[in-house]
């Protein structure tokens, strides 16, 4: 055990002593925040959203939407649309004059054959391809309302993805009532942090094992340590590093949210409304630790088999693929965190570490789901550690044989015999 502790200390010192660790820990989130928030700030300044228009926060106080209805569809406005928001014009010339006078920012022409074609013509002062994203939805909503004669149905036509209705059988969870923007940023933030810390810390394991193989240090180490003790020391040492990185990122996120509250409020995201559910930290810790051990063992086994890091590419990608899936589906996760896809992925052990936590952060997850997910994850982690240990042997660590699927199977069979 003494030597396992020495390896733990060595891995911690070694990883924390590398400038690349600190650069990645601090620079990567900064770059991503600059790109994601920066892009949103830029787009925000380029066009106004539906909510801005609805709240009457138009840029010059002019009537936001004018229209010329050649189809004769608009007879009434939905109850929640203020009459001052839209103005009807009898023809294009009148509307054009109002646009030139500054009474309008833009107007729409509803052609006589709109019902057949669904095409609107937008007329603006300046060409702005994204500038009418908010107002065009309002106009379509008004037209739909007049066509179907029902506000609820018209909204469903406008946003079909939000048509899922959930009924709480327990006391309502305040988090489930968070609006879309808040839900997205919380869910995406948690998903992002868990994904990156898990992939990075598992990557440290792969590099650590590969480095000892490439430097041929492993033969010296094996005279002092059994291969499984070496693996244990590495997993635990790099686990401490992973927890530190997680603490830095979560702490950084907390500070950013607190300090950047006013900036986020301009996106319709109100920090006060972000409340993580009870027990989230405990669930988070358990899912993270098990997820880390699972993937670190897996990548450690790949490192033990491969003669160098260059040959690990496709194997590492396949091993980490389940962690990436929720990231690729993050939008669907944020929109419907409790639908079938998100639920299955958060219960499936390999995708659970990055799927369950974002759902828990958003709220509304029945208690049995994280519990079942955790038990399945613990069982799978145990199984994967046993499998990884079969590959983590002196003969594989000292071998310079190339990596291939045939070899993986062969070494697995050899490991089973020992």
């Amino acid at each position, binding site marked *: 055990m003494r030597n396992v502790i020495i390896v733990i200390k060595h891995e911690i010192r070694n990883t924390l002593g590398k400038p690349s660790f600190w650069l990645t820990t601090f620079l990567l989130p900064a770059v991503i925040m600059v790109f994601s928030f920066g892009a949103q700030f830029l787009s925000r300044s380029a066009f106004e959203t539906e909510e801005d228009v609805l709240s009457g926060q138009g840029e010059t106080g002019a009537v936001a939407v004018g229209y010329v209805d050649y189809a004769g569809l608009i007879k009434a406005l939905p109850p929640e649309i203020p009459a001052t928001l839209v103005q009807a014009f009898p023809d294009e010339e009148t509307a054009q004059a109002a646009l030139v006078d500054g009474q309008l920012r833009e107007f729409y022409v509803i052609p006589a054959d709109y019902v057949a074609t669904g095409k609107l013509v937008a007329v603006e002062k300046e060409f702005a391809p994204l500038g009418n994203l908010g107002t065009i939805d309002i106009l379509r909503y008004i037209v739909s309302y007049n066509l179907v004669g029902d506000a609820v149905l018209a909204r469903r036509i406008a946003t079909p993805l939000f048509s899922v209705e959930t009924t709480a059988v327990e006391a309502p969870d305040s988090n489930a009532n968070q609006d879309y923007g808040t839900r997205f940023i919380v869910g995406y933030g948690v998903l992002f942090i868990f994904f990156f810390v898990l992939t990075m810390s598992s990557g440290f394991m792969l590099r650590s094992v590969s480095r000892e193989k490439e430097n041929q240090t492993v033969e010296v*180490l*094996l005279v002092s340590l059994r291969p499984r003790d070496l693996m244990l020391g590495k997993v635990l040492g790099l686990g401490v590093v992973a927890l530190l990185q997680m603490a830095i990122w979560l702490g950084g996120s907390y500070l950013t949210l607190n300090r950047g509250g006013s900036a986020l409020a301009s996106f319709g995201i109100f920090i006060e409304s972000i409340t993580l559910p009870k027990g989230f930290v405990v669930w988070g810790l358990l899912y993270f630790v098990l997820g880390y051990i699972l993937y670190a063992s897996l990548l450690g086994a790949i490192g033990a088999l491969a003669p160098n890091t260059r040959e690990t590419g496709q194997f590492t990608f396949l091993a980490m693929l389940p962690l990436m899936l929720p990231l690729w589906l993050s939008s669907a996760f944020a929109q419907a965190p409790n639908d079938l896809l998100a639920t299955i992925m958060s219960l499936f052990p390999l995708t659970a570490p990055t799927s369950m936590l974002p759902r828990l952060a958003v709220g509304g997850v029945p208690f049995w789901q994280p519990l079942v997910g955790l038990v399945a994850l613990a069982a799978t982690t145990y199984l994967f550690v046993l499998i990884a240990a079969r590959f983590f042997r002196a003969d594989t660590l000292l071998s310079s044989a190339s990596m291939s699927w045939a070899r993986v199977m062969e070494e697995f069979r050899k490991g089973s015999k020992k």
Partner: protein
Amino acid sequence: MTTVKVSHVSKSFGEVKAVQDVSFEVYPGEVFGLLGPNGAGKTTTIRMMLDIFRPDHGEITIFDGKLTEDKKNRIGYMPEERGLYKDLKLEPTLLFLATLKGIDEATAKARLEPWLERFDLTGFRQQKVQNLSKGMQQKAQLIATLLHDPELLVVDEPFAGLDPVNTRLVKDIIEELRQQGKTIIMSAHQMHQVEELCNRILLIDHGRNVLYGEVAQIKRDFAGNALTIEGQGDFTNLPGVLEARRHNGTWNLTLDTGVDSQDVLRAIMRQDNVKLERFEIAEPSLEDIFVTVVQRAGHEEAANA
């Protein structure tokens, strides 16, 4: 009492029989040479001795018993493929490896100082290993092997990559360790180094014991198998001669087993274009014996095939 006892040990990797029925003993305070051509099974034998690999058959005892974790701390091992963390600084690397051998960091630090001085590496202690020359890395590896003051030292090719000055230094250290009562097992290709340092040797070829015993006795046993000749003419391609090498005008002939030196003399005298000035039965060098034994084993294998 033996420091190492290897009894009828075998090890296969798939279809390849790396070591077959190898046996030898190493006694306290001796320098033991483990010799053999590339791929003979030396490294596999060493790895089994150190419990890195488990033998398929046979038994190995270290310090009169099974190799336990505590006993591992009494062993220093320098593998042929040198292994230091290239991206780490020299001092922390050496301290890490020493602490894995059961000593605390303060003791390791105190012991490190004189070794760095002796190997002229004091100024490089905070340099990354990758910035050191090959010779310096070799010396650093030797420090890593010695820092925990082992009782048994296993060194594979200790002189590889060293210049003559540092080769001399390493030889002196091996001699000092022997005088301190340490046991040393060394594997080397340079036969004159083995001859100079080792009390006893084991020659392995194709995974089998082919020669085992005291160096002096082995040389006596093979004494009739070497000739020193001076003269004019061609002394190659003589019957019964395994190898003929010319050095500074003197020919060294290695004879096959069972060949009488008088038959070789008669064969030389039968040649018209030869003028013989000196004909002497020589004590063979370990290198001559090595070549004889390995070639003979090769011939026997070819004959059996």
